[in-house]
């Protein structure tokens, strides 16, 4: 296919976000002819990893779902060495995304790093390691014996099977923090650590059963690749992973066209094929099925809903909050205490070597944990990534702050009727992200160590970030179902995966996309089978990822 030729495909996928990219890879591997388009010049849509300059350009483009953006400047040294994530998140070591990465072979394209430290911030201004395992609890000196026993009992319960547990009776829907206090007699501090830094609840009203399912997934992730249950991908993680899935799709024959707007999409009356035309592109693309990424919501389409399974990372119950975000770049390491497992042996000996500076860390601020300002109803999470993640130059760290705006939930399942996200466009509808997040950023900066080489002259002034930006990300508009009358032929052959909420529990965004992509995959297979008249004589597709051929690794003859 050349620029001036028409070409026929089975499927046109619009947008290269993680959901669409995973689906495109699976569909292409299954043998469908896929054209994958994006209006942006970069891969990843709302989950892209951008260089510093691309990030600035992205902000200046007046993105429809970004509000109230402000930033400290437009430049930084070594700008191209940064990969800034639009969807910062963790990856649990077991779960749908890891499974998809391994089963598709995409894991071979990218690098990953373990999260070294998870801490919880306390009102006194210090951070404490989160006790996430028996060993951590055992060695922790700050917890009383009685509390240790309670904590241990809870973790044993949470790691086990949740079916028919008497502790859960009548509590499945109660707010998780209340459940922890009422059933396990855990104190305020431990409740905060468990609810927000182990289960990553987004609000104090998160229901117990989904929180327990989440926590159990995380607990079971520990030990697979190391002590930490969580990984973060190199080069901004999700955007790089999306590129990996797109490459896999391309290797199976998918055609990629980026950086061009859709100029027209019509349905041919003769054969009900979708015909797509692009700006500055002479050829026309034709396909039986169009899959719309979240920034391509069509007027009418069959929405692919989230799974109904409560234990899934993305379900009909997932709350849909706007989120206030901050991205800051700093050049001083943070003091995040000693890893939990080292605190006893160290015994605060005066000559003990300083703890190693973590390259990757998470700090959780439970609601009300900031004495001056901050939210009393929502937890803030901070993800810090350094040079080891290939996302920034040596001696620099990217700090990602996120605070869900829990006063407005756009999930229709939890509130009855979801408000239209467009209400957020009204003036004053959203709080100022800088005012909301500055206190958190200040608290993080106050943890900075003196610059290397300047330890002696340490008037411990917090550093000024080299760059900082604040913005609010709002939910996407949900698409409507096909019209009841049949005046829109082929509307059922537009699939629109319901857009993912802007904020997930920190480790869940990637898993949510993987789960969603699987629904999209099967729905596409079903629709295409129908479009081809029942698919008789065709080979039945039985799994999303066919077993991998190892042929590319076999070529081992020496060549001299």
């Amino acid at each position: 296919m050349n620029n001036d030729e028409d070409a026929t495909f089975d499927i046109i996928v619009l947008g290269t976000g993680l959901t669409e990219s995973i689906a495109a890879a699976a569909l292409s591997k299954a043998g469908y002819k896929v054209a994958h388009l994006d209006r942006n010049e970069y891969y990843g849509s709302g989950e892209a990893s951008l260089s510093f300059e691309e990030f600035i350009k992205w902000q200046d483009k007046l993105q429809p779902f970004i509000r109230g953006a402000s930033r400290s400047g437009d430049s930084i040294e070594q700008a191209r060495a940064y990969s800034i994530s639009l969807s910062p998140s963790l990856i649990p070591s077991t779960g749908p995304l890891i499974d998809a990465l391994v089963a598709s072979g995409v894991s071979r394209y990218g690098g990953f790093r373990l999260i070294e430290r998870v801490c919880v911030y306390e009102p006194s201004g210090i951070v404490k390691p989160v006790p996430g395992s028996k060993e951590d609890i055992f060695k922790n000196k700050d917890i009383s014996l009685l509390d240790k026993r309670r904590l241990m009992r809870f973790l044993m319960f949470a790691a086990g099977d949740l079916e028919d547990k008497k502790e859960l009776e009548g509590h499945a829907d109660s707010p998780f923090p209340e459940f922890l206090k009422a059933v396990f007699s855990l104190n305020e501090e431990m409740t905060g650590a468990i609810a927000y830094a182990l289960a990553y609840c987004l609000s104090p009203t998160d229901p117990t059963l989904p929180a327990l399912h989440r926590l159990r997934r995380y607990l079971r992730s520990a030990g697979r690749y190391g002590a930490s249950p969580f990984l973060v991908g190199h080069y901004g993680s999700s955007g790089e992973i999306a590129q990996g899935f797109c490459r896999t799709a391309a290797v199976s024959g998918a055609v990629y066209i980026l950086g061009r707007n859709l100029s027209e999409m019509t349905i041919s009356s003769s054969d009900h094929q979708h015909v797509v035309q692009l700006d500055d592109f002479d050829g026309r693309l034709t396909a039986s099925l169009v899959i719309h990424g979240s920034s391509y919501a069509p007027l009418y389409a069959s929405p692919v809903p989230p799974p109904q399974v409560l234990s899934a990372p993305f379900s009909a119950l997932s709350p849909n909050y706007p989120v206030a975000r901050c991205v800051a770049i700093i050049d001083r390491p943070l003091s995040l205490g000693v890893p939990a497992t080292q605190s006893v042996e160290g015994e605060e000996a005066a000559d003990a070597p300083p703890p190693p500076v973590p390259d990757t860390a998470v700090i959780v601020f439970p609601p009300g944990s900031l004495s001056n300002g901050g939210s009393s109803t929502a937890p803030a999470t901070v993800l810090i990534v350094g040079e080891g993640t290939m996302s920034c130059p040596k001696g620099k760290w990217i700090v990602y702050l996120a605070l869900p705006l829990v006063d407005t939930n756009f999930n229709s399942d939890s509130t009855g009727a979801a408000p239209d996200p467009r209400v957020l466009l009204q003036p004053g509808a959203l709080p100022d992200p800088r005012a909301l997040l500055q206190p958190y950023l200040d608290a993080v900066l106050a943890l900075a160590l003196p610059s290397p080489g300047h330890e002696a002259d340490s008037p411990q002034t917090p550093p000024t970030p080299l760059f900082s930006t604040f913005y609010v990300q709002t939910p996407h508009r949900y698409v409507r179902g096909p019209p009841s009358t049949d005046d829109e032929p082929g509307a059922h052959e537009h699939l629109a995966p319901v857009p993912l909420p802007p904020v997930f529990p920190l480790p869940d965004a990637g898993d949510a996309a993987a789960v969603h992509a699987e629904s999209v995959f099967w729905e596409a297979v079903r629709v295409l089978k129908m479009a081809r008249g029942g698919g008789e004589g065709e080979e039945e597709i039985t799994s999303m990822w066919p077993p991998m051929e190892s042929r590319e690794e076999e070529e081992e003859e020496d060549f001299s």
Partner: protein
Amino acid sequence: MADPAASGSVDKSVQVKLVLLGEAAVGKSSVVLRFVSNEFQANKEPTIGAAFLTQKCRLEDRVLRYEIWDTAGQERFHSLAPMYYRNAQAAVVVYDVTKATSLEKAKSWVKELQRQANPNIVIALAGNKVDLVQASASSPGAPSSSESEDEADDATATPGETPGSSEPESLRQVPREEAQAYATEAGLLFFETSAKTGEGIVDIFTEIAKKIPIEHILAATRGAGGRPGAAGGRAGSQQEGAVNLDATAKPKDACNC
């Protein structure tokens, strides 16, 4: 998943990620196929259909293990992902000696590499399809038809895009001297090659191997699971926490709580 390289190992070979670039239909995949399998397919379909191919290259006392990435067609509409160049230690930029515009395209890829890729990357420029411009008499034993991917023209003795031309050398649109001068000026290795006959192909990879800063790569990839793609070529970067998803995948009952 069997990945002998990833599981660490005794194998002392150095991993080198090598990326291919160049205009569509200049023979990128054919060059690799010749190097890896010593095969040639006329009228090969575009794109190679493999994540990457691997091939060892022995050089005096050490062994390089090339991990060769093909564009998978993503270059056609300028949609090559940045992931493609990441940590590449070597690149082969291919053009077609019978197509002047393909050298211009190659120059823009070189610029792109110098802008985007690892600053120590070793770049080789390969003028492919040189068999098309060699008189069959002057190279006995070498078939004179070409591997041209887009033209089904390998049945004739003097094929080409210029009908009626009987002088093979007249098919040439890029003089060797011109490409050589550009390569020298830009600091690139330079070869004229034929994936069809095999001419010059192995030389590309052995000359790259000689020029690769091996100590540098060893230092950068140490402890990173030994994978160039996964490891990152930055010297001195912290790699202790890097994880290889395939190599260490264990059953999930390793929970330590």
